[in-house]
Structures are given as C-alpha cells and as structure tokens.
C-alpha cells in the first residue's frame, strides 16, 4: 500500500494540445491530471494548488463506512438535466461525465467516461470512451452494462429538447452536432471555436450522464438515480426532495487503486439537509456529520478548540458581490465616473472587515479563484488602486463638482455576507464623493428589475462564476447571458472591447486563451469597467480526523474524486 499522499501519486505532464488522454502512466486507476497545454505546473500565482491531504495511517485504506455531509437547502428533484442549487454535489457520485476540466486549475483534467480526447480542429472534440464503465446493480431494471456513446448522444438529445436544461444555453449557442461513430466514439462539434467547451461538458451541474434507459423507458429520473459512478445506486427510500439521500457503493465501478483495490472504499455517501448553521455546527461536533463548512477563519479556530485533530481544507469560492453600473445611462456613460467608482472601493478593507486577511482576497474583473485567468495583485494595484482623492478629482473633471448624486439599487437579502458588504460599500462611496440614493427592493422585485435593466446602478449579489466567460461578458453590450438580461457592458460604447471579449471565447488554445482574457481585462480597465467584483472568499471545511484521502484544491472537480476516500475510526 502506498503511503504517499493522495495527490502526490498524480503527476502533471505536458502533452499535445491536440490530444489529451488518460495515459496509463498518469494514474494507474485511470485518473488523468494533465497539463493539457502549456500550463506547466499550473496554479499560477493566483491559483490555489491541489492540497495534499494526509492518507490513513495504521495500515492504509479500509473498506466500509458511510461519509455524511451536509447541504444547506432543498434540491427538489435529482434530475441532472435541470436540478440546480444543492443537488450537483451528489451527481458526480452517482453518474459519470465525459471529462471534467477544473475550473479552479484550468490545466487539470479528470477523465471519467472518456479516456481520450482528440481535437483535430478548433470545433471538433472526438472522445474515445473508456470500456468497463459499468452501471451499478439496481432495481429499476436497467441492465448492468457498460456506458457507451449512445448514452452520451441520448443525453445531449435531451438537453437539446428541453429549454430548462442547465446546458441548454451552451447547446443552443455553441453545439452544432453530436455524432456517434461506434459504441466507444462520440464526436461533439461546435458551430465555432469555443474556448469554454471542456469547462461546460464536465461540470457537475448539468453535465453528468445517466443511462439512456431512463429516457427510453420513461423512468422517473427526478426521484431515482442509477449510474456508473462510484456510488451509483440510491438506497431505497433514502431520497427526499428536501435534501436527503444515501448513495451506495457501485461494486461495478471501473476504477481500482494503485494497489489493485477495487474502488470506492466507502460503502455509502449520505447528504443530509441542515439549513441552519447552529444545528450544522452541533451535528459536526457531535459526530453526526463528518464534515462542516465554517463561516470564516474565526469559526474554524473556535471549532479547533473542541475538535483539535480535525482536518481543515481551504477552497477558493467562485462567489462574489459586485458593483454594477449601467453604462448607457448617465452618469455611468462617462468613463471618468466609472473609473471614479473603481478608485472609491477599498477592496482590501472589505476583506479585512468581513472575512479577515486570511479569509479572502480582492478581486479584479476576473475573480482571483480562477487562477491564471485573474490579474495578479500587483497589476491590480496599478489598474484599480484605492484612491478616494483621485475619485473626487475624476468626479470634478466630469461634473465640475467634487461629489455626485447617484442611485443604487440593492435587495434586502440574507445572502451570505451581503449585509456586511453594504455598510462598507456605502461608507466608502460616500467618502469618495458619491452621494447615494438607496433604492432598496425585496429580493424578487430586485431580481426582476435587475433582469430587465431597470436600474442606474445595482449591487450584484453572490454571482457564482466558474469560468472567466461571464465576468468578461458583464462588459459586453449583450451582458452576461448574451441577451441583455441583467446587465449591459461598455462593449456597446467601445467596439474594440466588444471584439476583444468575443475573441477570448474563440481561443481554444489554453495559453492563448489565458493571455486574451488578461489582455481584455487590461483594455476594460483603460476605459473604465462597468462591473466591479469586490472580493471573493475562501471556504473552510473541517473534516473529522477519521475521514481520509479527502480530495481538495480542485473545486467542484474534487467531487469526482471521492472514490478513494475512506473512513478509519480505528475500530
């Protein structure tokens, strides 16, 4: 049994950008973590590295046991086509994706159903499927067969036929065709080069692929699930729409550990819904749940007083609150006023006051958790320095006065940290010469006004963006959804910026893609950005010490990797 850390067993290697495959040498069990192109050791200055987590002691991994984790809200159904919110965490356990490209470390790929990807040109993605990705035993009458290309085709057909599908916008805007050549080969063609294709098709949200029998036989996929993932069977009677489920070990799972152990080690993974923080915390302290996501570093420190041997992992959150200006309306159509807003915001103060210096970092136009796609802190300091005096100067240059009246819409909301952002925002803006008329709305009303662009400026709550695409699209004339919903950016004022944003999406070469995203941010800063992300924070998750081989550092991609985790309570 290997005593190396879980992650040390996976190396990164430079391979052709036209050919990415789950080479046997990369991970004996078939996990490929490869620098697809030019990423070197990845991570970059801004990105977090995959964290090495101690493996088990006293004899290594053990079979059996149940890992219990919490979710915070309903998930309604568990149909991976449409389910959002808290359900995506369970999908990579039950089902398989073709492959997943980490949205936190863009050079890391996890090959699941596909074992090889070829890109003969910028629009074509040819996947060779792995043999032996076998469906779990079940009582739904679905044969324990290998997943094949027909399952993939069936899944994309379903996406194409349902506007509610999470991947529907991607499919409508970018997907040209899905073709099955033989049971092990499927080809996706996009209608134009699209740099984010591999981020989209592997995301736990909307991209895991169920067996086609669900659709052919009209089985109820909203409350049932059987797949070829490591925990491919849902325990009878365990599912509830309010957020409970037990996923059971798939004895047919295709992966084995380095030592030949059949994976996964755990018998079951259970999700329990606990909405309120106090019972979540108490459940963790009492051992009723095995992990707990703390609110901030201070809470972690408090918990470690009671559970001193707990493992603490840190994951950068792709979440932030932003200040959004409508650049077609005065005064935000004046680049000096937009730049003044940028100088008004002391983003480090938000970090310090809300999550503490260790709990987050200031954001540029692309948030820092996206690693190489984000500008470095040093460059950000040059491009968007906190300088309220400069802000007043710019206001004076634009208006002749050293202050300006503006109206800012925001919702009454208990969304995480919004209440803490608000007073800091108001105070900083006032200090820099912005006299704010507060336009306070209930959440639903705010959302409708926000969607219909009925605002001068608005706080934009908890955006969760896993790629650089939408953060840049906020500056496009068509906004983040491509249809002028929620926002319109300065691309309408500056054609060169609109073109640059569009160009970033066509860069299927990852190096060129990163360079284009960085350069476009610099261009936007020159013209005064209309969408200013404030800061993103770190999620601290505590695990009881008996939970071993916890995959961390890859964001949602880590959800695919729980097959080597195990429980060792020393019994």
């Amino acid at each position: 049994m290997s005593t190396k850390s879980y992650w040390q067993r996976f190396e990164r290697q430079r391979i052709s950008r036209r050919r990415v495959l789950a080479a046997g040498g990369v991970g004996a069990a078939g996990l490929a973590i490869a620098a697809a192109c030019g990423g070197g050791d990845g991570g970059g200055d801004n990105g977090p590295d995959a964290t090495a987590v101690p493996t088990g002691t006293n004899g290594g991994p053990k079979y059996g046991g149940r890992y219990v984790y919490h979710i915070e809200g309903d998930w309604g159904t568990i149909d991976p086509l449409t389910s959002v919110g808290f359900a995506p965490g369970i999908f990579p356990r039950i089902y398989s994706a073709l492959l997943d490209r980490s949205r936190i470390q863009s050079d890391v790929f996890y090959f699941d159903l596909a074992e090889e990807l070829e890109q003969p040109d910028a629009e074509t993605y040819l996947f060779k499927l792995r043999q032996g990705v076998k469906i779990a035993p079940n009582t739904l009458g679905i044969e324990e067969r290998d997943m094949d290309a027909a399952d993939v085709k069936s899944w994309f057909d379903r996406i194409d036929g349902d506007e509610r599908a999470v991947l529907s916008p991607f499919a409508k805007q970018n997907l040209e065709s899905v073709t099955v050549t033989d049971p092990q080969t499927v080809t996706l063609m996009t209608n134009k080069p699209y740099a984010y294709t591999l981020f989209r098709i592997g995301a736990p949200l909307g991209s895991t692929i169920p067996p086609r029998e669900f659709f052919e036989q009209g089985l109820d996929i909203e409350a049932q699930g059987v797949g070829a993932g490591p925990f491919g069977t849902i325990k009878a009677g365990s599912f509830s729409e309010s957020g409970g489920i037990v996923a059971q070990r798939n004895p047919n799972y295709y992966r084995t550990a380095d030592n030949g152990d059949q994976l996964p080690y755990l018998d079951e993974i259970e999700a329990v819904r606990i909405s309120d923080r106090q019972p979540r915390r108490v459940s963790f302290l009492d051992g009723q749940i095995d992990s707990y996501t703390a609110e901030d570093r201070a809470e972690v420190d408090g918990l470690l007083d009671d559970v001193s041997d707990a493992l603490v992992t840190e994951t950068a959150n792709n979440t932030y609150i932003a200040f959004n200006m409508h650049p077609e309306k005065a005064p935000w159509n004046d680049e000096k006023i937009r730049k003044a807003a940028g100088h008004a915001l002391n983003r480090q103060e938000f970090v310090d006051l809300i999550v503490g210096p260790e709990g987050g970092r200031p954001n540029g136009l692309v948030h820092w958790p996206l690693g190489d796609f984000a500008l470095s802190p040093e460059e950000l300091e040059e491009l968007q320095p906190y300088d309220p005096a400069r802000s007043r100067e710019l206001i004076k240059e634009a208006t002749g006065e050293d202050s300006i009246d503006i109206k800012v819409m925001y919702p009454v909301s208990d969304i995480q940290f919004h209440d803490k952002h608000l007073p800091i925002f108001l105070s900083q803006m006032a200090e820099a010469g912005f006299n704010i008329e507060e336009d306070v709305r209930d959440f639903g009303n705010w959302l409708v006004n926000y969607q219909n662009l009925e605002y001068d400026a608005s706080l934009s709550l908890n955006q969760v963006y896993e790629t650089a695409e939408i953060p840049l699209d906020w500056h496009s004339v068509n906004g983040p959804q491509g249809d002028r919903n929620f926002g319109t950016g300065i691309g309408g004022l500056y054609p060169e910026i609109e073109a640059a944003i569009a160009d970033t999406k066509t860069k299927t070469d990852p190096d060129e893609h990163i360079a284009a995203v960085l350069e476009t941010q610099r261009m936007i800063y020159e013209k005064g950005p209309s969408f200013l992300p404030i800061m993103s924070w770190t999620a601290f998750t505590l695990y009881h010490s008996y939970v071993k081989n916890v995959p961390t550092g890859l964001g949602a991609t880590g959800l695919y990797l729980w097959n080597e985790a195990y429980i060792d309570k020393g019994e």
Partner: protein
Amino acid sequence: MQRYIIRRLIQGGIILFVLSVVVFLLLRIAPGGDPAAFRCGFTCTDDKIAAIRKEMGLDNPYFPVSVDLTDPPFVSFNGESQYWRWVRELFNGSLGRDWNGAPVADELQNRLPVTVELLIITLLVTIAVGVPFGIVSAVYRNSPADYGARFGAILGLAVPNFWVATLVILIPIQYWDYAPPLTKTIAFFDSPWDNLRQFVPPAIVLAAVSAAGVMRLTRSSMLEVMRQDYIRTARSKGLRERIVVIRHALKNSMIPVVTIIGLQVAALLGGAVIVESVFNLQGVGIYFLGALVRKDYQVVQTLTVYIGAVVVLLNLGVDILYAWLDPRIRYS
C-alpha cells in the same frame, strides 16, 4: 346539534373559498417579482424563463372567467386558468409541483407527520405544565408557589423561542457532549427513543410560550370561578377542598382555556417555523417559510388554505367541546 354542525361546515366552506381567492390574488399582486424569474436565477434567458413559466402554469390567465367592462359582451371564458388548475389539484390531491419541481403532495406527506407530532407533543406539554401550575397558582394565591409559577410564566412569554432553542442545542454539546439527533427526522415507530430525543426538546421550547399563556389564563379563570356562589355552596356543604377545586371549579374554568388551546394550534404553527429550523426538523413550518421567501405560489396558497381548514375545524371542535364542558350551552 347535527344541523348546527352542518351549518358551520357550510360556513367554513365559504370561508375557505374566500380565503383561497384572497390568498391567490394577494400572492400575485404583492410586490416581490415573478417566481419563475426567481427560480430561473442568475443564469436566466428569455427562453428558459418562458419554459419555466409554462411548467409552473404561469402562462395561463388567473381565473376561468375574465371580465372586461370596456369590451362587450364584457365576460369571456378562458380555457385553462391558474386558479382553476390549482383548485382542481387541491381536490384531486395531486397539489401540483413546488418551486423546485417536487410534487407538493409528496412533500406534505413527508412533512406533515413531523409537524403534527411536534404540535401534539407541544400541546401535551402545554396542558401538562400550564393547567396544573395555573390551578396551584390560583388555589395558593399570593404564596411562594404562586409567585414562582407567575415568574416562570412571564419568563416563558418574554424570552424569544429562537434564543431558547439555540441554547437548548448549544449548552448540552458544550458541557456534556450531548446533542439530539439533528441530521434527519426519525419516525416514532422506527426508534421511539430517538424520536422522543429529537422531538421533546423542540416541543418544550415551543411549549414555553403556550404553557405560560395557558397557566395565566387557567389561574385567572380559576380565581373567578372560585369566587362564584356555587363554590361557596359546595364548601358550605362541607366538601373537601380537593373535590371543590377539581369537580366544581376546574371544569367550569376550562372554557376559556379550551378556547385558547384550540387557537394556539395556529399560533404554534408560526413558532414551529423557527423551532423546526433550529432543530432541523423537516416539517411543514420550514417548508412554508422557504416557500414564502421565494414566492412559491403553489405551496403558499395550498398551505394557507389547509391551515385555514384546520382552524375552521378546530373552532368547530372547540364549540362542540363547550357544550360538553357546560351543559347549559345548547346549539340550535
């Protein structure tokens, strides 16, 4: 009596119809935006929101009949309507789907037993604590027992139950490494002991307020009855004080107490929202709260009508109970 009950049931039906129209309309005209947009969230496109509106039935007119006084013949009949669809679902028991796409009937089937059990235990604790302490407080008026009971009652009324609930789960884990089961609801017949460990602490928290109210009402009602002539007569006949209190005073003093206990069921549902949340009981209260926050029409209007029906039936039950408690009361 039978005719009285039938008449009350017909009145109740009318009340529920009016309630259904009012809640249906209020939800739609109240500010708060479009629930489809809410569900669609930040990744919404026009196509997606249209598909969700269709799925939720929001693309239909409100009522089966439309009235337009500017356009003869002024009345037009719509095919499918939101109200008619909802009423149909109410009667056929399917209850439609909630904001998450989950069947409301399934949710209620899972959640109702949780809330009902919580309320039953709460009522038992309320009666078991409120009535005896009220009696003791009245019988031993101005004694240390009376002062103690009244102090406890005021404390119960004054302290917010979310705070008590939080303390009830935090203190035991901090000092005794004990916590009630918090991760999922345990059915009584699966494990009676664990079920009680899970339900009794929140029931005690919920009962703190209601028991205080019942205790104070029992006390004042008892004091009033104890001053009546027939109590003096009973004592003058030489009956023992215990017989006087239990047989002659208690039953007559219970009429206002029964009324308040009946009405408290609806009030307890409100408190259950918070207590269910703190103790992570997946009951109706927590479901209702979530539905209100996200403007889930189907759930809010269905639960409102159900709660209305419960209140109507409880009021009827309380009125019937009056006749049993006081034979002088006759309904016709």
